[in-house]
């Protein structure tokens, strides 16, 4: 369908608000980009005015700055520090409440807020990350019913990426910049001195209903091809590239490479990379007891493989050194994820590179550890 240019429509900038209002009217919660504490992050939106109009970002290893643009783009930025993970696999979920009773505790299971979510401005990399998390949390022998319930009926209004950051490498991971699948509508923003339009691709029946209700006009072929050029331009501006197909074997053949020692010295084990990564899924469970000792809340919350207790077993941690924890994280994302779940665990969004306080660049490290087959920008 995305190849069928004639199917594309045009949404003028001034009608963006109408689209979001229509989505809200249909019962969805809006999750989209907004400027918050100096960064463009995903969060609940009230409407179109919450979008980061006229903002972009500058990113490089260890550095993020939200800065003003010279135009009024609504989606003119790259992946921010908050991914979509937290809206589907909540950072902290109450599993069950236990109350002391005569014959053992009474157990009450909660279900939480599961009104459907409409994702506004998800990129190709964000959608690939959701597909990867679906594979882990919803497609195994034991799906997580809380995740499945929150993911059900997610409406996706994607925005094709025209603005890669200095940390991005989605082209290497086959995850972008174009979103090919997994959206109901995909917008491409075309903005210059005279115009501000969105070219709209329809990806589902639900999407078709939305554009029908808005009675959008067909996009002129020239506008459509201009939109495509902007996305292609983003691909061409991607700062780094490597041969992803070679990484699995190259990393696993070099588990004792001296670079792991250097990484063990540089890495602070701060967990930032696992907090910003859109595919990280690890959790831990814990009991929280009230002061009387009669009521216990059992929670599942996000966890990080960089903490020492993550692999704790009687007698100590299986991965006591930072070197081993870094090796676990990198080899999991880029190699053993294939063995466990059938795909890479990385989408090339670059969040881990930008958020690393010491500026560790995973693409650089892969090229050092994997050697010739993984060298950067071949």
């Amino acid at each position, binding site marked *: 369908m995305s190849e069928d240019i004639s199917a594309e429509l045009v949404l003028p900038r001034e009608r963006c608000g109408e689209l979001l209002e229509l989505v809200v009217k249909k019962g969805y919660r809006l999750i989209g980009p907004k400027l918050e504490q100096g960064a463009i992050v995903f969060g609940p939106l009230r409407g179109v005015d919450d979008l980061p109009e006229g903002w972009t970002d500058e990113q490089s290893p260890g550095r993020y700055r939200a800065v003003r643009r010279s135009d009024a783009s609504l989606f003119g930025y790259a992946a921010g520090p908050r991914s979509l993970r937290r809206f589907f696999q909540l950072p902290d979920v109450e*599993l*069950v409440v*236990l109350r002391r009773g005569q*014959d*053992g*505790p009474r*157990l009450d*299971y909660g*279900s939480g807020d*599961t009104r459907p979510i409409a994702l506004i401005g998800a990129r190709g990399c964000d959608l690939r990350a959701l597909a990867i998390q679906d594979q*882990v*949390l919803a497609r*195994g*022998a*034991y*799906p*997580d*019913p809380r995740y*499945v*319930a929150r993911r059900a009926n997610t409406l996706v209004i994607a925005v094709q990426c025209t603005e890669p950051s200095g940390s991005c490498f989605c082209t290497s991971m086959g995850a972008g910049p174009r979103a090919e699948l997994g959206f109901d509508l995909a917008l491409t923003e075309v903005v210059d001195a005279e115009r501000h339009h969105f070219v709209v691709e329809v990806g589902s029946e639900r999407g078709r209903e939305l554009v029908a209700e808005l009675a959008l006009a067909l996009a002129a072929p020239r506008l459509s091809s201009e939109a495509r050029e902007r996305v292609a331009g983003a691909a061409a501006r991607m700062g780094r590239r490597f041969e992803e197909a070679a990484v699995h074997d190259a990393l*696993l053949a070099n*588990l004792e490479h001296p670079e792991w020692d250097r990484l063990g010295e540089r890495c602070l084990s701060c967990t930032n990379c696992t907090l910003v990564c859109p595919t990280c*899924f*690890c*959790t*831990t*469970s*814990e*009991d929280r*007891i009230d002061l009387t*000792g009669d009521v*216990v809340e059992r929670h*599942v919350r996000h*966890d990080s*493989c960089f903490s020492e207790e*993550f*692999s*704790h*077993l*009687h*007698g100590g941690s*299986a*991965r*006591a*050194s930072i*070197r*081993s924890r870094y*090796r*676990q994280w990198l*080899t*999991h994302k880029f190699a*053993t994820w294939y*063995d*466990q779940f059938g795909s890479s665990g990385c989408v090339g969004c670059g969040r881990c590179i930008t958020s690393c306080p010491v500026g560790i660049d995973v693409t650089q490290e892969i090229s050092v550890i994997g050697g010739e087959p993984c060298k950067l920008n071949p």
Partner: protein
Amino acid sequence: MLEFERDPWRVESLRVTRVTRETEDTFTIELDAKPRAGFVFQPGQFNMLYAFGVGESAISIAGSADEPERLVHTVRAVGAVTNALAKAKQGERIGVRGPFGHGFPIAEARGKDLLLIAGGIGLAPLRPVILYAIQHRPEFRSVTLIYGARSPKDLLYPRELLSWASRLRLETTVDRAEDDWFGHTGVVTKFIEGALQNPESTVAMMCGPEVMMRFAARELTTLGVPEKSIFVSTERNMKCGVGLCGHCQLGPFLLCRDGPTFSYDRIGPLLSIREL
């Protein structure tokens, strides 16, 4: 509404019917699993045991698979959860989720020599295999158990060991003996060669410290037992037991989902990489 019928986090609250102290820090808990309609398990599978208000721990099932309504676990009190479980009394309740993971492939050993090697508390996950082998003895050409512990007072199931001795070949060994000890001393690997009759048609199942399993596997393969016929039970930190929490990774495997039992040709190379 929501599909919480098959919620893998849902806990069953089961009554403790008996608690037996095994050694200084190890005890056996029996739970009444009759309320869990249709509960069945394979020898080598585990449950998540939940001490209410404290947390969960992954514990192998140590009872007979022919008698699954008597749910038996042998636990070593080493952390907050297992110490809380150790305090459980008859009539109290413990939370259970499971059974999870893949058990030992007993069918692979039919018609062959079955060699079981256990170290310390590693005897507990093998106990369902032992009970099965005794109950179904004609299915196997021979059944041998080599069991090692630190000292005589660290031996699990001491009375049962005596009764097993008449039904299978049993070699019990300790690291440190005392005057009243009539068994062997030394590591379990010393007794492998003497126990092997037909290496190429022997199936070995092991559970114990990783270092023990590595040396025992090396001895077995040196003596001609194929790596594919050696099965080990592995252990890592587990939080969910069902492949959702990520804690029990070992290279390409999630031990709860892909294990905890593995054939040695698959898991052996990973066990020799430090801190993997």
